[in-house]
């Protein structure tokens, strides 16, 4: 093995190098820089200006002028609404799509359109549609749910396709056996479909949680965080602090790390919850 010529031994590294340099640079290296930055005063264009210890984190977590908790609360509300909305729309749609005798392919195509349309375009269109439907974006009590509604509308079709794939994997004979045992449709759904779909459910839930924790485009285009900061979510707070207020890069980095921690905690809790459920073994 080690007697191979040097060129032969180095070849694999040459193959993986470009990809690893790019992915490594824009994940580990940049996270390292961000970690460093979060302990400093830092201006996006002027550069670093002094070590400040935990001050950025302290400011985010404890100071009364910090919008971290407010933004986190809004983000969590948005995530919960989105996940509930996506699960309650995508799964029923997938079940119905399989039952519809005609047009399955057409439905699949149409329902998929939102996920291939630029988010900016969707936000611009819904900005007016929500206006037509009674000024949803003008009131601080309806703006955030309206944004979540857009998220659900845009994500339902994509996740329906994932559910369809999961549903077609379920062996037919399980339903046949249940039918012979006299199980009704609801019982079949409860005792066959749901448990067999477990992996897909976990996947859709986790991906929706991660995705909606980072919601930015619709907020930026439609509300700019308003009215009265009612739609200020974390990704937006980070963006505003890092790129529009001078000298806040370190503070924004601290916010980004806090967001990372929150997402990570959520995903782990979710995994734990899903893991603990018993499923049928073959």
């Amino acid at each position, binding site marked *: 093995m080690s007697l191979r010529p040097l060129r032969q031994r180095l070849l694999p590294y040459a193959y993986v190098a470009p990809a690893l340099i790019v992915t490594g640079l824009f994940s580990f290296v940049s996270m390292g820089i961000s970690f460093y930055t979060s302990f400093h005063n830092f201006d996006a264009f002027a550069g670093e200006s002094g070590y400040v210890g935990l001050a950025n984190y302290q400011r985010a977590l404890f100071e009364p002028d910090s919008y971290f908790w407010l933004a986190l609360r809004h983000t969590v509300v948005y995530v919960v609404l989105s996940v509930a909305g996506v699960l309650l729309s995508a799964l029923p749609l997938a079940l119905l799509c399989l039952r519809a005798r005609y047009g399955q392919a057409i439905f699949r195509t149409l329902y998929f359109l939102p996920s291939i349309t630029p988010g900016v375009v969707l936000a611009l*269109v819904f900005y007016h549609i929500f206006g037509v439907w009674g000024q949803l974006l003008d009131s601080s009590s309806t703006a955030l749910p309206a944004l979540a509604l857009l998220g659900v509308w845009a994500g339902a079709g994509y996740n329906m396709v994932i559910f369809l794939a999961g549903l077609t994997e379920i062996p037919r004979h399980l339903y046949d056996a249940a039918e012979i045992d006299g199980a009704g449709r609801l019982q079949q759904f409860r005792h066959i479909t749901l448990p067999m779909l477990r992996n897909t459910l976990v996947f859709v839930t986790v991906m929706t949680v991660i995705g909606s924790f980072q919601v930015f485009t619709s907020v930026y285009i439609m509300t700019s965080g308003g009215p009265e900061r009612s739609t200020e979510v974390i990704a937006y707070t980070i963006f505003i602090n890092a790129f529009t207020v001078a000298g806040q890069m370190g503070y924004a980095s601290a916010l980004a790390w806090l967001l990372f921690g929150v997402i990570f905690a959520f995903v782990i809790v979710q995994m734990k919850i899903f893991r603990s459920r018993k499923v049928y073994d073959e």
Partner: protein
Amino acid sequence: MSSRFSRLSVTALVVMVLGAVVVVYPYAYMVGSSIKTRKEFAEDKISLVPARYQISQRLLHARGEPSALDWPGSDWSVVRNYVDAIRYGEVDRYLANSFIYAVIITSLQLFFNVLAAYAFARMEFRGRDLLFTLLLCTMMIPPAVLLIPNFLVIRELGLVDSVSGVLLPSLAGAFGIFLLRQAFLNIPTELEHAARIDGCGSWGILFNVILPLSKPALITLGLFTFMGAWNMFEWPLVVLSNQDYYPLTVGLSLFRSETSADWPRIFAASVMGAAPLIFLFLLAQRYLVGGISLSGMKT
């Protein structure tokens, strides 16, 4: 039993059709508003069809009665806002930028991902499994968290406000390498042995044996990458300040922030921004849908 089945399938069909209406409505709204005059959109944000094209108005007009066709601006041509968006909003340049970004990102990302995936799938080298695990770890970092740090890296490299700054972070990706590696692993090694006996090196094997057999995975990844690149918004928004480099998404957000936003024209630009992807999707649907099912199976 059969009557129950058909009732269920009829209900399903009805619900799916209603759902389709809900999905299509915003597109109809966008297209309809994009052919209104500015004045008409200001007065009527609801109707999907501009008054001058509504059948009732046409009938009134045919009977010689006063109708929307007598309003000023009723000769506003269907393509007028589109032409104006290109002429005054430079949407053609934004579209060209988006296209160039998407093409470069897609081709280079495919190339680099293929090389890495091939090495991870078929070559023996020290540290391979560790590197692959680290690579997979990068998929767990949410992009929103990477926004600032990636900007700082680009800034260190002196690439702020440049095309390379927009492109660089997307030139390779863990998901793509993972997807291609899976595809490569499914190809029987006997084929490669045969090629090796015929005198093929690893480069020749990759291009003559592996790639032709992995076409579906390559097309799927290519489509995903192209769509991601076409739709990217936050990253170019942060990196670029020179409008000449803006992709369409950022250009659209710029129109929106103008105080006297010309909405019908913005909708025309939106239609032009959404249409290429929808067209691409209709052409290559089966690869995309297959790819999504694949990503769903990943867990």
